[in-house]
């Protein structure tokens, strides 16, 4: 059973692509938009935030293309940050929301930042969690995978070597188990890993391939952050193995925002340390409102 069910659920039609959205606490004044992230998981990764935030705010979640209640589209053009920003605007329009505090986790930070830069009047505040913004070099073990991503994988491949397109197609479930074991670097994370693996198995390697093939060029994230006019909050775990903590620190600095460093937390602290993240998000929304 879910702790809270949506007051409104529906789909927006995006030029033939259906995106599922949910609205909680629909009667509340202020709106929080919880953005999708890498489509390997869907909007249920906000499950620890929604019931709490929805007691105070109108909370909107939606599934991005490729997972959850949205279509499993394999057109790479649907996966650019610009496309995500347009989808978010469409969801806000559908819900009749002028502006919202926008929260993005990991790749969701790119989508949220793009939205805030392109549509400043729609974003009252921007919170980024473990942002996947390439503002600093990646960790060495992650850097190594980029060169070999499209090459054949060796036999007995281990660790980050599994971040490989052919391996995804051959051993998708094994890859996602590995990946989420890295996301949740905190001890005693069995339930968090099970949940994420389950959500990952609702999509497939063809969708992830399409996302990887999204057309460029890469945005200048530093420049976009510097340009932001809304208040920002960055939450980043110091034990994040996916996105180095330094990236969050720089993101806060460039956007003149507040930094919440979560000592010993991993990549997805909203799942693993939900209470602290919930309180920090509430404080942020209140501050934005005042």
């Amino acid at each position: 059973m879910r702790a809270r069910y949506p007051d409104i659920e529906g789909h927006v039609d995006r030029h033939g692509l259906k995106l599922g959205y949910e609205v909680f606490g629909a009667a509340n004044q202020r709106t929080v938009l919880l953005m999708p992230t890498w489509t390997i998981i869907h909007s249920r990764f906000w499950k620890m935030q929604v019931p709490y935030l929805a007691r105070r705010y109108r909370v909107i979640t939606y599934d991005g293309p490729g997972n959850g209640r949205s279509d499993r589209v394999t057109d790479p053009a649907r996966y650019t940050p610009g496309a995500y920003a347009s989808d978010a605007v469409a969801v806000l329009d559908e819900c009749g929301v002028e502006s919202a505090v926008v929260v993005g986790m990991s790749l969701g930070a790119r989508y949220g930042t793009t939205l805030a830069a392109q549509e400043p009047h729609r974003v009252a505040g921007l919170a980024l969690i473990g942002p996947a913004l390439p503002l600093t070099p990646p960790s060495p073990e992650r850097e190594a995978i980029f060169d070999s991503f499209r090459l054949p994988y060796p036999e007995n491949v281990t660790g980050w070597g599994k971040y490989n397109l052919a391996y995804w197609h051959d051993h998708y479930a094994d890859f996602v188990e590995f990946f989420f074991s890295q996301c949740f670097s905190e001890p005693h994370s069995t339930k968090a890993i099970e949940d994420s693996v389950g959500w990952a198995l609702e999509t497939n390697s063809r969708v992830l391939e399409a996302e990887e093939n999204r057309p460029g060029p890469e945005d200048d994230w530093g420049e976009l952050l510097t340009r932001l006019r809304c208040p920002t909050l960055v939450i980043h775990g110091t034990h994040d193995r996916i996105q180095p903590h330094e990236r969050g620190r720089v993101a806060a600095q460039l956007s003149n925002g507040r930094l919440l460093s979560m000592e010993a937390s991993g990549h997805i602290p909203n799942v693993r340390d939900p209470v602290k993240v919930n309180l920090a998000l509430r404080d942020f929304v209140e501050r934005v409102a005042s």
Partner: protein
Amino acid sequence: MRAATPTRAGTVGHEDVEIFYEVYENGGPTLLLVPPSPITHSRIFKAQIPYLARHYRVVTFDGRGTGRSGRPTGRDMHTRAQNVGDILAVADAAGVEEAIVIAHCHANWWAVDFASSHPERVAGLVAIDPGIPYLGKPHEHWAEAGATWNEALDNPSGWQLFNRNVITGDLERWVSFFFDAQLVEKHSTKQFEDAVGWALETTGEILADSEEAQDLDPPTREEFQDLVDSLDLPVLVIHGDQDVCQHVDKGLGLATATEGELKVIEGGGHLALARDPVKVNRAIKTFVDTKWGKDMSTETWTRGLSRPKRALYVSSPIGLGHARRDLAIVEELKKIQPDLQVDWLAQDPVTRVLESAGEAIHPASEWLASESGHIASESSGHDLHCFQALRRMDEILVANFMIFQEVVDAGNYDLIVGDEAWDIDHYWHENPELKRGSHVWMTDFVGYMPMPEGGDHEAYLTADYNAEMIEHIARYPRIRDRAIFVGNPDDIYPETFGPDLPKIRDWTEDHFDFAGYITGFTPPGPDEVDSIRDDLGFAPHEKVCVVTVGGSGVGQDLLNKVIASFPLAKAQLPELRMVAVAGPRIDPDSLPSHPGLEVLGYVDRLYRHLSVCDLAIVQGGLTTTMELTAASRPFLYFPLKNHFEQNYHVRYRLDQHGAGTAMDYDAIDLDGIAEAITSEAGRSVNYRPVETDGAQRAARMIAELI
């Protein structure tokens, strides 16, 4: 002693009246604190300023007619326009372009007028117990008393004392009634004394003139409505629901009219500033930070299981005795919990002991207002009225509590140990929602005792303080997770807490665990004495007399008197050698010199001297006398006059050990001291032994909590 000192102070002339103001320089927004003069002045904010000035720039002033400002007479010198003009003059003089104005009582009317007429100067308003015309219903007793304001009443009483003839004839009568009525909270003796004292700094004529001046320029309701409508600023109202000066409806009225925030203090009277300072201070800070706080703050939060075990140890800085025993306890605690990290929130002179022991001193320690400096400032000669000194330390205690609370709010401490950390224990009972971590309270005496010279009034005050403590513990047993008495039940002074209050011993046995005495060191055995004496350069045949007054800086008179007796004693006892220890807070060069007399400054591990001397001459402080008792040394002790702890608690405990010879500083002359030195030096003694496992026992009690 005040808890904070202004960066600068000055006066500014406004229409021939000198207005005194103070500036506490700092970054961040400026707070302008406006007192409701002339019945009080800027000292009404004494519990706020030290805290607010650590975070913001603070400006305050004494209104016309009181404090250090001029005393104009005549109704036309106390109009609203003039008081508002004073605010503007101070803002100009202090270089305040824009401020958050904080006002109390009727000063809020001036603040609102100022905000309306100078909107560019006022960024926000914190209105405490506000009284503004038309906003909310006033108490009926004001209108009733106002009707007889000018009459010559026979035997006026109660609110009838609000009368020109009474106020001009006997100001104290009116203000005593008024503040007694305002302080609805129990145990408000100190706040009452403060408020009446400040009120008596004006005159009855001025106070009466200022009351009548309110009728000179009253606005019509329409004018007033325009004024309120013109306000466009954030407002926080704090109001006690038992306020009998300004009805809480008036706070609600202001909050409603300005779309501001209202915080009601249930059970609170008119002087929330003084009576619930912690709540008021934190509410102001939250309000200011929410509206003007920096967005670029950085916070680090650590996952629960990734946190090391941490303790914050707060050691009383009055004297050095607590530091030594607290170090001994921490040493034992680390044997039980090797991974425990201990931070100390401490101030001079305790920090000297901690630094030489290599302990970690929390950086916030440097913000603490000096408690030992206050105690020194309260002493005069060989006299320290320590109960009154503690009462007058109220603003230092609240200032230091606010620092402590910030440290524990941010520090993830599992354990807080307060060795006679009065501020923590008191304000956590007054603000129980602020408690963090497990809390150990530790003390070596329980119960304030009146001194005979203080008469009935002092007996009433000590009983009131004791009663408050007893009520605190009864209402909130969860605040002290462990209360440790440093000593044994037999050491407890056999008295009651006061009329109709329990016996101290019975109550203490019910509410404390007993660790036994904690010396902080193991006294040398007979075979070790010679080698320590040798180390210190004491020859076997010398009769070494050590004179020390501890670490508080109180005691120069005793040192001088004993040193003056030295030549007399030396004539009778040629092998006499005297070592006078000035301690950390007395300049050794300020003491007289004699051949055969040595004067030392601060001595680390002074117990080594004490434990091998042939005679010690000391004050009546517990630590030093018990060290001497543990080391089986003969000693003369001079309890400080009017020091209830030294005269009752310590003396009783020493008597249980059969230790020491109590001396009366005033009664004895130099010959008498010399004679006592001659007869006591080297005397063999047979005291009831002092336990040596006290630190271990206390550590075990504490370790159970982590």
